[in-house]
């Protein structure tokens, strides 16, 4: 029972809701960059939200099913075909043995998810089936998929015709607000530097992957100081510290980088702010060129937003439980 990879697409990998709890020893959470869409793909095919799915980025893979099963495609907007016939996204659909799944050209967003009834049953490592490609473990043999790979899947049957309507789907505008909590090192910026960070949009560059998202825009101004022992000579350097997932570092004061779910766990760049967890899926769906405004919120507001996001997922799940 499985899925054969005929063409892998671009950096296509197996992801679930991640591997939290090991960042302190250098292992990032990994998991789908759009956790919400990945969870809902599972719900459509009758899986638990945390089961493993296929994450494709920008360009779709070409897959063949070796047995009948039920699938759903969520996330970024892209035409989806079975044997050349278009099928809807955000809806569970049955497939037969030897059916071939292909994709058209991406319309909006960046990452899309294929869930299969029973999930992709690669081995769990540290409690997760997510791929961490830099660490060469998790997912399918610790790497992105290649032609000829045969993925194990769970079940041959599942619910067909479950639909998630548009009000519950993410949107992919070309200009977005991303909420951040300032710090820990925002005090290193001058007032002019801080307003440059917050008052004008940043443009997502093509350098955007599971590790980090780099933006272009204005240069930030740092406060003068004598660099402390152990810090690099550039004003954007600090004595090495742990990097939160979602933290924004600005090497050299140009081109902020948002660290995402495969990021390294620490280093010597000042983190001027951290994207709130509720907005990380939004960041994960940004295509190059997306204009991004960083909007400061308090920690209480960040936690409230996290609660609203979790409630939204539970509300959709409850339709079928």
């Amino acid at each position: 029972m499985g899925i054969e990879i005929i063409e892998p697409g671009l950096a296509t990998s197996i992801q679930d809701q991640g591997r939290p709890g090991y960042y302190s020893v250098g292992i990032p959470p990994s998991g789908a960059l759009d956790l919400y869409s990945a969870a809902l793909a599972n719900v459509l095919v009758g899986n638990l939200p945390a089961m493993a799915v296929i994450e494709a980025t920008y360009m779709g893979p070409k897959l063949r099913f070796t047995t009948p099963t039920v699938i759903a495609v969520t996330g970024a907007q892209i035409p989806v075909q079975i044997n050349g016939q278009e099928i809807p996204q955000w809806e569970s659909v049955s497939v037969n043995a030897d059916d071939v799944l292909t994709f058209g050209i991406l319309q909006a967003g960046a990452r899309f998810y294929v869930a299969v009834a029973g999930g992709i049953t690669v081995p769990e490592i540290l409690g997760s089936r997510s791929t961490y490609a830099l660490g060469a473990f998790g997912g399918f043999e610790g790497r992105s998929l290649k032609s000829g790979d045969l993925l194990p899947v769970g079940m041959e049957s599942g619910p067909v015709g479950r639909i998630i309507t548009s009000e519950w789907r993410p949107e992919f505008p070309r200009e977005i607000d991303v909420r951040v909590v300032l710090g820990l090192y925002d005090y290193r910026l001058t007032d002019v530097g801080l307003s440059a960070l917050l008052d004008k949009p940043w443009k997502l560059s093509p350098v955007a992957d599971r590790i980090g998202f780099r933006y272009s825009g204005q240069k930030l101004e740092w406060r003068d100081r004598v660099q402390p022992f152990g810090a690099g000579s550039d004003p954007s350097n600090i004595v090495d510290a742990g990097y939160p997932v979602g933290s924004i570092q600005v090497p050299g004061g140009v081109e902020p980088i948002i660290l995402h779910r495969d990021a390294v766990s620490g280093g010597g760049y000042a983190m001027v702010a951290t994207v709130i967890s509720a907005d990380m899926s939004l960041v994960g769906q940004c295509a190059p060129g997306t204009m991004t405004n960083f909007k400061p919120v308090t920690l209480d507001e960040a936690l409230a937003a996290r609660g609203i996001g979790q409630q939204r997922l539970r509300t959709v799940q409850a339709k079928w439980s």
Partner: protein
Amino acid sequence: MGAHEIQAPLPGVFYRRPSPDQDEYVAIGDVVTPDTTIGLVEIMKQYAEIKAGAAGKIISFEVQAEDIIGPGDVIAVLETDS
């Protein structure tokens, strides 16, 4: 005579040469087959080859080398027989 637009299947930085010191894959006026590589798109430290997708003669490039392009953007136009 027809026309075929070669569309970008993915976003990224477009290149017309396999590497900076090599010749361009194709030039205007060249005759190509569907499998001819006409350029590269770089994204996430990977290079994807862009194929012509149809047989014909290249009549224009709609983007410049090193431009940032989006999915669905027209890269080049072919004149085809059909």
